[in-house]
């Protein structure tokens, strides 16, 4: 029977336990499946959102992808990470949804630009580090999300899969169906563009407008 309150809050710290639960779901204990995917549900949503740019569609695709994962759980092989397998299904599902709905037309012009050509950083002022603690503030997270949303699709997708989903370069290339070289080029551009966006925002004072106490640093 299913173990009540099975929680896998810390993926990676207990791979053996995760593999055990996967095996049980594969044997038919489908009621354990949500507990299995719960540690990765945010990453699954983020992958779908990076491709679709619409929260409603991303949530729907995330759900559809997890249902597909459940239906095909027997095909999962332990040689790959379970999280990567889930994200792969999600990316496939999101790409199919986008093709079906032809949203690529809406932002496809920029994608025809060649990846080649160097990107020159715009801002060379000393970088004032934004510490991780600042992410506790919703306003900071919101600004970072807005900056990410301004990137063209091809840069945003690569950046999200590599830097947010923690996939490696090869996995990112395979999921998106592009070359490793393209991943590296797009990743460079995405990182440098975000840096410029955040540095510019910093200089324009978007952090200073946050409701921090007068005279104190926000972190």
């Amino acid at each position, binding site marked *: 029977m299913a173990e009540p309150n099975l929680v896998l809050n810390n993926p990676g710290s207990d791979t053996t336990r995760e593999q055990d639960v996967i095996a049980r779901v594969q*044997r038919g204990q489908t009621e354990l499946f949500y507990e299995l995917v719960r540690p990765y*549900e945010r990453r699954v949503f983020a992958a779908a959102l990076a491709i679709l740019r619409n929260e409603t569609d991303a949530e729907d695709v995330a759900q559809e992808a997890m249902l597909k994962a*459940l239906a095909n759980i027997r095909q999962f092989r332990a040689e790959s990470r379970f999280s990567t397998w889930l994200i792969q299904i999600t990316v496939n599902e999101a790409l199919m949804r986008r093709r079906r709905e032809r949203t690529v037309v809406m932002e496809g012009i920029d994608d025809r630009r060649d990846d080649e050509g160097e990107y020159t950083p715009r801002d060379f*002022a000393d970088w004032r580090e934004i510490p991780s603690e600042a992410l506790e503030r919703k306003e900071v997270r919101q600004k970072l999300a807005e900056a990410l949303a301004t990137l063209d699709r091809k840069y945003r997708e690569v950046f999200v899969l590599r830097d947010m989903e923690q996939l490696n370069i090869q996995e990112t290339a395979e999921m998106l169906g592009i070359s490793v070289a393209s991943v*590296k080029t797009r990743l460079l551009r995405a990182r440098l563009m975000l840096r410029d966006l955040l540095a510019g925002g910093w200089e324009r004072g978007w952090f200073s407008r946050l409701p921090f106490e007068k005279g104190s640093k926000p972190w």
Partner: protein
Amino acid sequence: MVSPKDVKCEQVWPEISNYLEGDVDPGLRAAMDEHFHTCQKCKAVLEGTRNVIQLYSDERMIEVPAGFGRRLERRLVQGARVRSRGWSTWSAWLVPVAALVLIAGGVRIANSSTVAHPLQTEHAQPGRDIPPDMLVIVSTGAKDFHVPGCGVIHNKDTERTLTAKEAIHQGYVPCVRCMRRYLQTAEVERTALEIEADISPDSDDDGVRARR
């Protein structure tokens, strides 16, 4: 070997991402390290890029809509139930189908062989616990025997009365309507239950599979 003096800012920027990935050859890496010590502009680009990666890789940067997890769980629970129902539907069909196949196979064997099969169609069953001296009706051209007054007696003008023992001996079988209480329906039901119990839910993804 790349000399630090040979490295210009325009050569460093395209490699900053690879540098942070640890994906530059040792010579270039050493040259870039040296360059960052002397070039504040490139150092600012490096530090900013590193900071960007650090911030966006933080779990807190991935936010989901309110109630996302609850809705996902509900959808998955429903999905699991549908799969389970799908299985139940299949098994519900499989049980009688499997029983019929078994029965039909029995009929074929009975018709093509001299070996009597213990389980045949209802029409071919010898009946169970029929009083041997019970008076029954048979008629020409029919294979069943009936209790008097049965509504499905054919060729009534050729009716004749005999005992059940005699009718069975002559190859007649109990009428499925009026002699139902003596038929071996219990045997059919038991076989169906056995088949159901023997069908494993451990099936492939798209269907079901019986072990036997």
